[in-house]
């Protein structure tokens, strides 16, 4: 299984730390969410308003075959089991 993992960009992360000369301080831990995209799983980094910040990981979905297997139409209704004598 191939996985492409980016080190989370520390410069990118620093954006969420307000500098010391502000009246207060605010920082948040970015959230990540994983989405299915074809045969890949993509983990994205989301900001406080669910805005897209970046991609942290792309990897092959090891369950792709069984997922595709479930949703690929067969071209007929598989119902023989419901009519067994």
């Amino acid at each position: 299984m191939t996985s492409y993992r980016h080190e989370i960009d520390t410069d990118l992360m620093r954006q969420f730390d307000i500098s010391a000369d502000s009246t207060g301080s605010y920082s948040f831990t970015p959230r990540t969410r994983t989405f299915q995209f074809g045969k890949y799983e993509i983990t994205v980094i989301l900001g406080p308003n669910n805005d897209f910040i970046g991609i942290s990981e792309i990897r092959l979905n090891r369950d792709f075959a069984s997922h595709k297997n479930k949703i690929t139409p067969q071209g007929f209704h598989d119902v023989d089991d419901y009519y067994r004598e």
Partner: protein
Amino acid sequence: MFYEDQQDQALRFGDIVQGYVFTAPTLDEPTIDLNLLNYTINVQHPLCYVVITPCCSIGSGTISLTPLIIVNYKYFDNPYFAKDLTNINRAMSPENAVSPEVWQKFPEEMQQVRLLEGEAYALLEFFIYEGHELLQKYSSGPKQNKIETNYYMIDFRNIYRLDCKRIQSPENSPLQSKILQLTVEVRNELRDKLADYFYKRPKEDLIAIES
């Protein structure tokens, strides 16, 4: 209409015929060593058969047949089939392919997957032959729920070849063996479902082709 009132003076694809034999060789284990080859050949005499050779290929002393068999009594549990068994011969919606009770019990995810099929065949190996006065009535099913019918069906997996020197062309054949002929529309339905049966591709092939 299922059967023609006036039959052609020729053997046709889908005809019901009588007077032949049905054989099914049975083998314990395939082997290239003839000393170890262990097989039996069963010969049966069903009442009727259906011609499966396409019309233009009937001849040269050979024909493909399949025996007419009794209908699976479980089909009558599905109201869509019970009202007209020949619905099995045509594409249908996923909800009609099983009884409403069975459909309601499917988890929602399974219903969604089945709905992706849209209109499609069910019971792909089978084709129903409508009842007719020339076809013998029979009863089938458990004692408490017996059904009486003269509908029959064929199973495409039973198709076999028979050699008979009298079969030289559709017109030059033992026409006395022919008892019923399908209408053009029903013959088309049989052809379509048979073609679909042989066209069926396993999911792994479909996924590989799409990839």
